[in-house]
């Protein structure tokens, strides 16, 4: 027993500071936030607060503004995930067999990842200018220059939730498709060439080759991509803040609503929104982390 501790002990000791820090700053503070969300701390004042149970959550789910932010988030997440997966997969398909200048295409498709969402938000708020017709600006102006006037629209100031949130998804898709391309490209390149050759010898068409041989090999990567994009979309904050400002009901999502609530000093409600957001992310991420860690330990 003593000998075992001598071999394990130092390793555990190395990890101890990290475990303690994350124990407090991740798990401890989440517990603290949750605790606040159960109280009536609706002002900036300090000192004791009374517990009100789940009243804040009941109020949130009975409130139009919060439900609106959840619906916005749902539409945004669907649009963003579908769009980014399609673009990323398409770019990877176009590049995976090797084309002249591949390195340049790859670098350019991936470069938006290096930019802050605040910086890209500055440009996209210019591009997504809602003015139309003679006064059209941004993308609308470009559409009229190239004769695609029918594409002109009010972007995120439009009436419908789908148009509004698609306008927010567009810059996010622009920023992250390259990442998904890189993931899929790595996946394609990791498939042994013998698999393709065997399928071709068997007379499989290109379509069948991808459908039945290559795509099934990519499903673990597609799952990773889905989880990454999902949790990014649920947390999306900077981009919306930079493009529309934080005070737009049309583009408000829970992450933004939490900030706005905090500005009005309602700490209990802000904590409640944050915990709901965390719960949504956790439903997505916990099974994935557990699955990955278990699978790796089996290797």
């Amino acid at each position, binding site marked *: 027993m003593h000998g075992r501790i001598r*071999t*394990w002990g*130092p*390793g*555990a000791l*190395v*990890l101890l*500071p*990290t*475990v303690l*820090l*994350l124990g407090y*700053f*991740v798990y401890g*503070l989440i517990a*603290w936030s949750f605790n*606040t969300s159960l109280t009536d701390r609706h002002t900036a004042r300090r000192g004791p607060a009374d517990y009100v149970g789940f009243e804040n959550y009941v109020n949130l789910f009975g409130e139009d503004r919060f439900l609106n932010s959840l619906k916005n988030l749902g539409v945004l997440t669907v649009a963003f995930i579908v769009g980014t997966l399609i673009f990323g997969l*398409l*770019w990877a398909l*176009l590049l995976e*067999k090797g*084309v002249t200048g591949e390195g340049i295409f790859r*670098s350019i498709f991936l*470069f*938006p990842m*290096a*930019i*802050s969402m*605040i*910086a*890209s938000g*500055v440009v*996209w*708020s*210019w*591009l997504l200018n809602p003015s139309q017709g003679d006064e059209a*600006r941004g993308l609308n*102006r470009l559409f009229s220059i190239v004769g695609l006037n029918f594409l002109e629209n009010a972007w995120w100031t439009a009436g419908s939730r789908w148009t509004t949130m698609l306008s927010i998804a567009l810059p996010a898709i622009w920023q992250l498709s*390259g990442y998904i391309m*890189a*993931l899929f*490209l*790595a996946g394609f390149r990791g498939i042994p*060439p013998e698999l393709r050759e065997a399928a*071709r010898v068997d007379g499989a068409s290109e379509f069948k080759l991808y459908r039945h041989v290559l795509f099934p090999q990519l499903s673990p*990567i597609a799952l*990773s*991509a889905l989880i*990454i994009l999902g*949790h990014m979309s649920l947390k999306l904050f*900077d981009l919306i803040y*930079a493009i529309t*400002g934080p005070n737009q009901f049309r583009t408000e999502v829970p992450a933004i609503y939490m*900030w706005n609530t905090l500005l009005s000093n309602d700490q209990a409600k*802000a904590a409640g929104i*944050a915990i709901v*957001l965390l719960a949504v*992310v956790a439903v997505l991420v916990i099974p994935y*982390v557990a699955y990955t*860690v278990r699978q790796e330990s089996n290797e």
Partner: protein
Amino acid sequence: MTAAEAEAATGRAAAAIRQKPRRGAIADGTTRTSRTVKYLLLLFFLLFVLTPVYVVLITSFKTSSDTTAAAQWSLPETWTLEPWRKAWDVLQPYMIRSLSLAIPAAIISSMIGSANGFVLARWRFPGANVVFAFILFGMFIPYQAVMLPLRTTFNELDVTRGVPTLIIAHVIYGLPICTLIFRNYYATIVPNEIIESARVDGAGLVQTYVRIILPISISGFVVTLIWQFTSVWNDFLFALFLTQQQNGPVTLGLAALSGGQKVDYAASMAGALITSFPTLLVYILLGRWFIGGLMAGALKG
């Protein structure tokens, strides 16, 4: 650093990206028409990705009289550096703060991440997997869920608002990803046998780490340093919650420069370029290691 080591650094997956298929494989099933279509599509998407770049560049050199609706997509009538000067005057102090925050935060979290990663990959103890999952989860949380009490904690500990608070926050919340990158890195490049034989020779953890692991960690450090530097530099959420204009980083400065009712787009665009310059430079010079970090972000290196 050898080329082979550099390859290993970016992880198996990232290295695989660059492995172009053999010539023979390209010809199969590819006609001239489909190749033309392929290039046309690639060019179209290239234009899509580069459109914002064109907009930033031309707008940042325009005078205010030059930014009418009709002239939005044309080159500047008269080229001016005025927007750049204006943006730089505003952003300069923020740039200095961001540098003095991103560099130490990246270095500290990489160092801790390296030690953690080594233990989790090659000096395992019972329950190491549970600890790994415990650490990893911290990477995915929406930070709004900790922001309020984090602010209170910093106030109570009397940490100076601004660069010091942000360094601490970024180091702590950067630990999961740095640990993950190094764990995958060591699991890929360090054979178990080396560690075993070192143990047989009586080398302890510290000796093994310093003599065997550290000398081959350079590329792992390049990946995590780049990753952390980029994400700290680009962070807005922590900056917004924990700092103010007079002590905040560059994303806060840019948001202030480009916010408000009447936006000076020429200066905002110049500001977007100025604030993106350090991370773009890193991306252009060290792109392959940047991809290594991205791949690690997908958990399975």
